[in-house]
């Protein structure tokens, strides 16, 4: 599972960094409320409000890496009571690259952070490839294709 998107912004990296990492700015593009300190290991929460039903939901996150002004990463979507780890959470990484006086902002959201893994964990993962996201989603795609051809 890997989603990659990027955008070129006509503003210097420091300005983009503030928008990406400061809670009062994040609350304008990420969630209705953001409680967070951009420090490695810091725990935070995003609060989402569903406008139609009026209900709120809270999503926890943990800051993984902060290298001002080029890298900001956090993990989210992990089970309650568990420590966020490569196997049980989704990693979101923002990278900022200056291009002249502009900034290229890239976001990668991945279900597995294979780079973080120890060699043993990587070896186990490759051996136990049936639990891989890619394989599962390839299969979902196949399944959908078959299902659609049956329906049409």
């Amino acid at each position, binding site marked *: 599972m890997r989603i990659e998107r990027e955008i070129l912004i006509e503003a210097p990296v420091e*300005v983009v960094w503030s928008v990406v990492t400061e809670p009062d700015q994040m609350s304008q593009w990420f969630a209705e409320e953001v409680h967070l300190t951009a420090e490695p290991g810091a725990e935070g929460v995003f609060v989402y409000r569903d406008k139609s039903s009026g209900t709120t939901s809270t999503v926890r996150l943990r800051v993984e890496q902060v290298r001002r002004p080029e890298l900001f990463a956090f993990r989210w979507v992990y089970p309650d009571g568990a420590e966020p780890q490569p196997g049980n959470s989704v990693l979101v990484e923002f990278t900022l690259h200056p291009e002249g006086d502009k900034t290229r902002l890239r976001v990668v959201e991945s279900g597995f952070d294979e780079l973080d893994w120890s060699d043993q964990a990587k070896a186990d993962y490759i051996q136990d490839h049936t639990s891989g996201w890619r394989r599962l989603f390839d299969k979902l795609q196949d*399944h959908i294709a078959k299902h659609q051809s049956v329906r049409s």
Partner: protein
Amino acid sequence: MTLTQVDDEAMWSAIAEPSRRQILDMLLTRGEATPTSLAAELPLTRQAVAKHLNVLSRTGMVESARHGREVRYRVRPEQIDAAAAALAKVAARWEKRLATIKAMAEAAHRSQESTTEAPEHQRPPAHREKPYQRE
């Protein structure tokens, strides 16, 4: 549960767990399976498999039917469609977020420039006597 009621968050957390992904994968391959037959091929007890199947059932991606003494599980294709669509929505959501970040950063940058060293062409003309009066 209708297609529109698929809860992205429930789905994400259901498939964020490696054992559940593996179980879903096995169900996609076989079409149908019992907790006992799945447990035989996994380093999990039948009870643990049953628990994971319950979580998957709650998202609507998997359904169960009783056949005599056993309960058989299978994927629900229409819900899998919805799940795949939900994943595509996640990507679209990032595009929207990045566009908002861009708009915010560019607006902040422009206002910084105009309060500090604005380029010649952006400065208010010096010769005007009433620079704030609209023309």
